[in-house]
Structures are given as structure tokens and as C-alpha cells.
């Protein structure tokens, strides 16, 4: 049986108002998302990028996210303090852009170009890059690049950046960078566990095993490209 939600009626009313506020500003987010797309459509990135995806958050998913946040806050004794004034600043993934690439060694160039573009076009990086990983080898790779790593209990992996158009922070966007194999895991997990974790414990278990396989896949693709390059360079 589900435990009674700690979210109050008043919280839910507030959340509905926040979702309406977001819906009323769709035009703003369409513009913002266009600007973000234009930023990362740079020719400088294309040699390293397999494909890209973007989306504006579905209002229903925003509602779920706000309910989860309100619930977490209530459980830890905090007040739900997201308002219409700070919604677009506090929820940083209302606009999301995702860069997919084939193998890990491409990440170094992608990260450098992403940071250059943000800097040159005068965007404000407010969070990241942060790499979520549960694998020691990959953790070491990111640490060598001076990228902060976070453990990942869910076994989700990706590098995240959060940035705004200016210091007013009127809205924020999130960039995710991950390999194609990580994307496979991410998509399966998203379909099965989002917005609510699967009720089937075998599904949840299998998804964790899938994470080990897709991680190995990335690792194998890395190795294939490494060997291929070594072969090319051999006298």
C-alpha cells in the first residue's frame, strides 16, 4: 500500500498554479529553446557529435516533478518554496538539449567546445559540468579532465551542464552529454521507471543489469576506436 503523501492540498493548488504559469509562457520557452539549439548547432561541434535531441518539458512531467519536490521537502521538514517568480530559475531542465556521441574520448573535445561556445556567446554557466557515474574507470577519466563526478545509485550516467541566457536567470536550460550506449539505457529506464518507478522488481533488477551491459558497450566501443587509431598510427 502506498504511504499517504505528505503533500498538502495547498501545495497541490500552488503546483497547479505553477504549471499554468509555465503553460502561459510557452512562447517564451519556444524562443529560448530555439536559441539553445542555435548555440549547439555550431559546426565546431559536429565532427564529434553523432546526433542531438531537444525538448521543452511536458507540463504534466513538470507537475510530477513539482509533486516529488514538494514531497521531498515536506519529508525533510522544509517548506515548499517554489513560486511563480522563481520557477524558471529553480527548475533548470524546462528546456533540455542532449548531445549523443559514439565513444568516450570524443567527450574531451565536446566539453571544451561547449564551454567555449557558452563563454563566447555570453551565456552564464551556473552548474557543471558534472559527470554522474558508478564506474571507477570512467570516474578516473572525468577526474583527469577536472570534471566533478557524482555517484549514481540509479546507475544513470551522463554529463550535465546548467546555464542561463544572462545573470537575470529568467530561465535556465540543461545540456546532457552521453554516449549512444548510455542513451539506450537512459531511454529504457525512462520508459519503465518514469515518472514512477516500475512496480515490477524484476524490471528494476533487469534495468540495473542493462546498465552494466551498456556501460561495457561504451567501454568496448572506446577500445575498438583506440585499437583502430593505434593501427592507423603504426609505421
Amino acid at each position, binding site marked *: 500500500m502506498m504511504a499517504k503523501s505528505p503533500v498538502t492540498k495547498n501545495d497541490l493548488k500552488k503546483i497547479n498554479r505553477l504549471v499554468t504559469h509555465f503553460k502561459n509562457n510557452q512562447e517564451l520557452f519556444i*524562443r529560448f529553446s530555439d536559441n539553445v539549439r542555435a548555440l549547439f548547432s555550431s559546426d565546431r561541434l559536429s565532427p564529434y557529435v553523432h546526433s542531438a535531441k531537444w525538448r521543452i518539458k511536458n507540463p504534466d512531467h513538470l507537475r510530477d516533478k513539482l509533486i516529488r519536490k514538494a514531497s521531498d521537502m515536506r519529508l525533510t521538514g522544509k517548506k515548499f518554496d517554489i513560486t511563480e517568480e522563481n520557477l524558471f530559475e529553480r527548475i533548470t531542465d524546462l528546456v533540455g538539449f542532449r548531445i549523443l556521441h559514439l565513444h568516450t574520448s570524443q567527450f574531451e573535445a565536446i566539453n571544451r567546445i561547449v564551454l567555449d561556445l557558452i563563454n563566447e556567446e555570453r551565456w552564464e554557466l551556473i552548474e557543471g559540468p558534472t559527470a554522474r557515474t558508478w564506474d571507477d574507470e570512467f570516474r578516473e577519466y572525468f577526474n583527469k579532465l577536472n570534471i566533478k563526478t557524482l555517484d549514481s545509485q540509479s546507475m544513470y550516467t551522463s554529463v550535465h551542464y546548467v546555464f542561463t541566457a544572462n545573470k537575470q536567470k529568467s530561465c535556465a536550460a540543461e545540456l546532457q552529454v552521453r554516449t549512444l550506449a548510455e542513451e539506450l539505457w537512459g531511454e529504457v529506464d525512462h520508459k519503465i521507471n518514469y515518472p514512477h518507478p516500475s512496480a515490477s522488481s524484476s524490471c528494476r533488477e533487469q534495468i540495473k543489469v542493462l546498465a552494466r551491459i551498456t556501460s561495457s558497450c561504451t567501454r568496448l566501443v572506446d577500445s575498438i576506436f583506440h585499437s583502430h587509431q593505434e593501427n592507423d598510427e603504426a609505421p
Partner: protein
Amino acid sequence: MAGIHRPSKRHPSKRIVIYNHKGGVGKTTLTINIAYALALLGKRVLLVDSDPQCNITSYLIDDITLDNLLDNSDGEDGETIWSALKPIVEAEGGLKKIEPIRHGKKLYLLPGDVRLSEFEEALNDFWRECLQRRLRGFRGVTALSSLVNQICEDHDIDYVFFDCGPNIGPLNKAILLDCDHFIVPAACDQFSVRALKTLGHTLLGWIKDWETAVSFAPDGIYLFPGKPKFLGYIPQRFRVYRGLPSSSYSPYFSRIEKSISSEIVSGFKKDDPGLASRSMRDLRIGEIKDLGQLANAGQSQGLPIWEVTEGTPDQKNAALELFEAVASNIIRLTSLSEANVNA
């Protein structure tokens, strides 16, 4: 070629436009005579001829000088509004500095140019680029604003008046969003009353577009305020009988009043608490009855209408009083709104 640095701060002069996209409501006559009246009251006034038809420039300067100005405006020594803006249109660097023409002690003119329409065409792209968060777009739409700012600094200007063409094009959008205030002239005819309906709607749309563009704008670039306030309206061109508008005009007075209230005041009072508390009577900042031959004489003689050779002394005195009253109202209302801002 002397250039202009983009302003780091907006000059405190008040920028005002007398605007109605309906033509033939007497914008130019009104603008120029209000400017003269403000100068009489001791204010330093800059007139910006931002209408490619150059009406205000041809009002103030003689035909030979005007011909010379326009013939040379495209070259290195050009002295018109186009000469200053041309490098922005042709992407050949920054704004060129030009000197306004002084007219009397306190009046300055930034001369117009038929080629200003080329700048207007480029503005279509600049507006689009603003929404794409591109610096070129922001620099383009604020180019005229930067130019005016420089002249205000150099000549210690108190009031800037833009004279606009009668349309809702991209140039007028840049002017309205640069202005602190707008005044609506409304002639007493049914087309002028109808035009008020689209006017409020159009202005509010421009303000919203700019808010969107600004919310993504990169930090550290010059932007105009984008929040013009409604200062009031001026009914015009009616005949008077025994000191009151004659019966054929009085229905238009109430229709104008109604449209001003429903189409403009209702939309603009949200961001302007001072506006909500003003009565319709107080919003009527002047009444310019049919000036008859005085208006035409003023235009052909390049003089304020109270100084022309035509008309009786009584008529001219009445005209002077009328415009001085409008000018005093403008001074009172613009300093009131400044007090509100500082409060």
C-alpha cells in the same frame, strides 16, 4: 570618421513621441509647435526627424540647405540621420557621429533623410535577430537610441521628440520602445477614432516582444527601456462654436475618450500605477482646434504658428497659449512620473 561608443548609461532627458499610425492627424505640426513651446519655457529640446518623408526637416530648414544635406548624406561628410546609421546597415563598423542643427537658442534638429527607409528595411532583420539572441540584432535596433543618447549628452538636452511616419513598421517599433512616453493625437473623424483600436494592441505587442528578447539578452549590452508610458491624448482639428467644440465634432470627443479608455488606458495602467489614478479630463493634455491658415503658414515660413505673418494677433495669442498649456502639462506629467520612479 568619428564614431560613437555605445552608451553605458541612458541620458536622463525625456524621450517622447507623438504617435498615431493613422496619417494626417497633424503629428508634425503638433510635434514642432510643442517643441517650440517647451523651448520658450526654457527647456532644451532635440527634434529627431525619424520619418523618411523628412517633413519636420523641411519645415525647419530651407530647401537649398535641405537639398545639400540630402545630396551629401551618403558620403564621408554626411550630416543626416542616415549618415549616422549607414555604417550599421552596411555592417561597416559603428555609428558615425553627427552634429544636430541648432535652431534658435534651445532647439536642435537631427535632420531626416529619405534613405532612412534603408535602415528601416534592415531593422526587419535586426528585430528577428534579437529574438535569436544575436548581438548584431540588439545593436541594430538600439542604434538610433544610442545616437540620440550621444546628442543628448553633448548638448545637455531636456526633451527629445521623435517625428514618426504614420505606420506600424519596424522603425516606429524601435522608436516607441526607446521612448519614455507617448502622446496620442486624435483627429475628430471616424478613421482616426478607429485607428485607436489597433494602436493600443500594437504597442502592447511590441512591449511583450521586447520583454521576451531582453529576458534572453546577453549581459553587458545597451538596451532601451521598452516601457513607453501613455502620457495623454490631444484631440485635434475640430471647429469651435462659442468656446465649445461645435455640434458636428462633439460626438467624436466622447468616442475618442471611450476608445482611449478601453484600448489604451486599460492595457497600460498595469505597469503604470500613476495612469490608473488619472481622470479622462487629466489625460486630455491639450485640445488643438482647427488652426486653419496658421498651420499651413507655419509650415511654409518655418516658424511656430504664433509667429507667422498670417492671422490676427488674437488668433496667434490663442495658439501660443494653447501650446504653452500643452508644454506645461508635459513638463508637469513627465516630472511627476519621475517622482513616481524615485519614490
